[in-house]
Structure formats: structure tokens, C-alpha cells
């Protein structure tokens, strides 16, 4: 029982990380048709800069972590918005070129990060409580899992509120469904592209800081690994669906944890099999929009 609880909560924590990356990917694809392979780089740069600021001001404290998180959010948002504005926008409606640019950007930035921070992981400090465990139903749960889950829930709630309550949210929801009709109502839909990139980048940036807490290090490859699973999550959840991304994040991460433990470390394989199965049965994903 305690093992099941541990796997479940760890899966939820990992799912929270996946969601922070996948939410932006899904919204960006849903609205613009852009597969953003640079999303992992938004996460990595945010993690590095968040760590650099946090450790200088107050390493290993809550205050330092909060500062890291704020820097991560801001850096993710700014870098993502700049990417959209400077690169993606110029290739409007040219989806293959857009994808290629993001692939190029991701390769180049990883090399850049390696140049600055080296190729080895840099181990990070975290507040003491996060390194401790809490016992639930006999399972000793590392406390950082709770932080990840709480942050992901806040981000999910924030994005949902934004989409439901604001004019831009309305434009984005409509644009995901039928972008040319939004333009035909006299709305400059491109402005909302930058906003969606900024929101997705901010979530990924926070994800970067939290990933460095979860793994205990920052590295130039932090984003690349999470990006792969975030893409899988996005496809399983249905490209363009925020709810789908949330549900699929949890499903994928929990499945991965259980398979790793009970099926001899086959978590990644099982996730890919799940992806194939979903694509066969529901090609649009669990909650994908109907074309």
C-alpha cells in the first residue's frame, strides 16, 4: 500500500512538471499550428537564471526559491514572447519552416547553455523542508512533490481563469477552434499569439525552476528530456486542449512511475506504447478538437 501511495504521489508530482510544459505546447499548437520545439529551451534558461539569482540572494531558503520562481516565470515569458515576435511571426502560416526554426533554436540554445554553464549537471540547494518527507498511509513522501502539485494546480487554475474571464481568453478559445473566423470578425489574432507564447513560456519557466528542485540539479539538458514527455502528453491529451493536457500529464506520469517500479524500469517504453494506443483508437487524443 505504501508503495502504491508513494508511486502515485510521485507520479502526480512528475505529472505536474509535464503539465507546466505541456500546457503551453498545447495552447500554442492549438491556436497557431506551431510545434514549438524550442519550448524546452524556455524552461532551461529560466531554470538557470532562476538558480543564478536565487543562490546569490539567499541559497537554499524559501525566500531564495520564491525569487527563483519569480525570475523563472518572468524569463520564460519574456524569452517565449521574444521568440514568437522575432522568429515565429515572420514565418506566419509556414508551419514547416516554423517547426524548423524552433528545432534550430533549441539545438543552438542547448549548445549555448553548455558553453556558459558546462555539460555537467550543477547540483542545487533547496529549503530544508522540501528535502524531508511526510508520511501518508505509511508512505514516506518527499515534500517537494507537494510543492510541484500545488504549483501546477495554481497554474492550471490561473490559465483557466484567464481563458474564461478575459477578452484575450475568449479570442484564444475561439481561435483554437476556428482561427480564420476570428480574423473575419475583425480581430487581429496575431496579438494573441504573443500572449499565448508568453503564458506558455511562463508556465515552462516555473516548470524549469521546479524541475531543478525535483531533480536536485540544473543542466543544459533539463528542458530536452521534459519536452519529449510533454509532447507525448500533449498528443495524448489532444493538441489544443488544456484540460486534455492536464489529464494526460497525470496519466502519463503515474503510468510511467508504476511501470518503472512493477515492470522492471519500462516506464518510458510503456508511455510510448500508450501514445501509440491512443493514436490508434483516438487519433485526435483524449480531448482533441474536432476538425
Amino acid at each position, binding site marked *: 500500500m505504501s508503495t502504491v501511495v508513494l508511486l502515485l504521489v510521485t507520479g502526480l508530482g512528475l505529472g505536474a512538471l509535464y503539465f507546466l510544459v505541456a500546457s503551453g505546447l498545447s495552447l500554442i499548437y492549438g491556436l497557431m499550428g506551431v510545434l514549438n520545439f524550442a519550448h524546452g529551451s524556455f524552461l532551461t534558461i529560466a531554470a538557470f537564471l532562476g538558480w543564478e539569482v536565487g543562490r546569490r540572494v539567499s541559497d537554499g531558503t524559501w525566500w531564495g526559491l520564491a525569487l527563483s520562481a519569480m525570475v523563472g516565470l518572468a524569463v520564460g515569458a519574456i524569452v517565449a514572447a521574444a521568440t514568437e515576435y522575432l522568429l515565429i511571426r515572420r514565418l506566419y502560416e509556414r508551419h514547416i519552416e516554423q517547426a524548423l526554426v524552433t528545432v534550430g533554436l533549441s539545438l543552438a540554445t542547448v549548445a549555448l547553455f553548455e558553453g556558459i554553464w558546462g555539460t555537467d549537471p550543477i547540483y542545487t540547494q533547496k529549503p530544508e523542508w522540501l528535502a524531508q518527507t511526510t508520511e501518508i498511509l505509511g508512505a514516506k513522501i518527499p515534500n517537494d512533490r507537494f510543492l510541484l502539485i500545488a504549483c501546477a494546480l495554481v497554474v492550471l487554475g490561473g490559465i483557466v481563469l484567464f481563458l474564461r474571464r478575459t477578452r484575450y481568453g*475568449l479570442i484564444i*478559445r*475561439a481561435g483554437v*477552434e476556428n482561427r480564420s473566423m476570428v*480574423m473575419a470578425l*475583425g480581430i487581429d489574432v496575431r496579438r494573441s499569439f504573443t500572449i499565448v507564447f508568453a503564458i506558455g513560456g511562463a508556465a515552462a519557466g516555473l516548470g524549469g525552476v521546479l524541475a531543478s528542485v525535483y531533480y536536485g540539479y540544473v543542466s543544459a539538458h533539463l528542458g530536452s528530456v521534459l519536452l519529449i514527455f510533454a509532447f507525448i502528453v500533449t498528443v495524448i491529451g489532444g493538441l489544443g486542449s488544456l484540460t486534455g493536457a492536464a489529464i494526460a500529464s497525470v496519466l502519463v506520469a503515474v503510468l510511467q512511475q508504476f511501470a518503472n517500479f512493477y515492470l522492471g524500469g519500462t516506464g518510458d517504453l510503456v508511455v510510448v506504447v500508450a501514445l501509440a494506443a491512443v493514436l490508434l483508437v483516438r487519433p485526435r487524443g483524449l480531448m482533441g478538437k474536432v476538425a
Partner: protein
Amino acid sequence: MSEPILRVAGLFGRIGGQQVVEDVSFDVPATGVTALLGRNGVGKTSTIKSILGLIDRSGGMHLGGTRIDRMPTHRIVQLGVGYVPEDREVFGSLTVAENLRLAERDAAPRREFIQRLFPDIHDRRAQRAGTLSGGQQQMVSLARALVNENRLLLVDEPTKGLAPRIVDEVAEALAEAARTVPILLVEQNLHVIRRLAERVVVLSGGRVVFTGEASDLLDDEDRIQRFLGVHDATDPHDTAAGSTR
């Protein structure tokens, strides 16, 4: 006669590299309903989409003196163009109210007017547009265009696939709208064309083959047969292209 609201001169339109509008030229007068007619697949929808820049196009186009052939879609619409697309294109995942709110461009949108014109829609404000009937969706689509004060309406087959009673309702709403705004109307239902249209433009093979007073076409059985490929229907709700649908 006063200046036309829309001038189309030498318009070409392409979809995926394929030419679907070829050297189309016509004017839309500043008042009344101009019907854009032709058999299925001649390029009526593509002409409308070319005007709005929704498909790749070239040629000279002026809206009330402003050149619009290089403008992006949203700017053309902001000049005062209302668009009711073929197949309605309501946002199915949004509520009726959200569909309308999204469409409001004016500082003082005409909500009471819409409420009076489509009371049924008003009662369903909280319902998701995707769960409405086809006729109700058409009302939402029309309401999205009519909620603003426009200088021109582009309306593409508003009665397609609707029950006779709803066809009459739609025609009534368009007649009311036409009192204050010129309309370029694509329509297959001869009864509706007779009721609304003052002028007609007929396309064939992507080109204009006839323009003139509506009566010049509609009173001439031979022309109707030649341009639209149908005999005039005695049943007022027969569609002009019924045989090819």
C-alpha cells in the same frame, strides 16, 4: 447613381495554388441587395473569401474608396464589413453570448436590435453554440454580423439546408438589415432571391457572365436555365440548385 460601396476589378483567387476566381469584376451599389449567383462550384464562396483576404488573392478592390486588396482580413472587417460565412462557422465550444461578444466591434453594439430580431437566440445565451440547431446557428451567425453597424454585408448562402419556416425568418432578417446596409448575397433559393435582390451578378467558370437588374434575369426563364442550370421553381422553397445538391 451614387458611388458603389464595393468595387472589384480583375480579381483572381487561389486555393492551394489552384485558380478558383478568374478575373472577376463587378460593383456592389451602396444600397440594396446584390445577389452573387451561379451553379455549384463556380467560385461564389471563393469570391467572397477573396474580397475578405481569407484566401490568397490579387486584383483591385475598393471599399468605399479605400483600397483593400493588400489589407489583412481583420483590417478590412474593421472598415465596416459584416461576414456571414457559408456553413455558419459559429464557435461551437463557445456560448451564444460569447459568440456575440467576440463579434462586437462597435463601442455601442446593437444588442437590443439583435434581441428583437432573434428572440430565440437571446433566450439561449448561455447555451453552447455547437448544441444549437442549424437554423439557430444561422441566427447566431447573422447576429454576429448585424450586431455592428456595417458599410457592407457579405452573406454566403444563409438559407442553405434550413426548413422553409426558418428560410422565411432568415429572409425577413436580411430584408430588415438591407434597409440600412448594402448586402452582397450568395443565395440558391430563387424565392429568396426574388424577394431580396435588386441586382444580380452571375458567375460561371470563375468569371462574371451576367450583371444587371434582378428582374432581367429572373423574368427570363431561358437565362435562369442557362446561368443557374434550373427551371424556375413553382414551389417557393425549392432551391435553385436543388437538382445538383
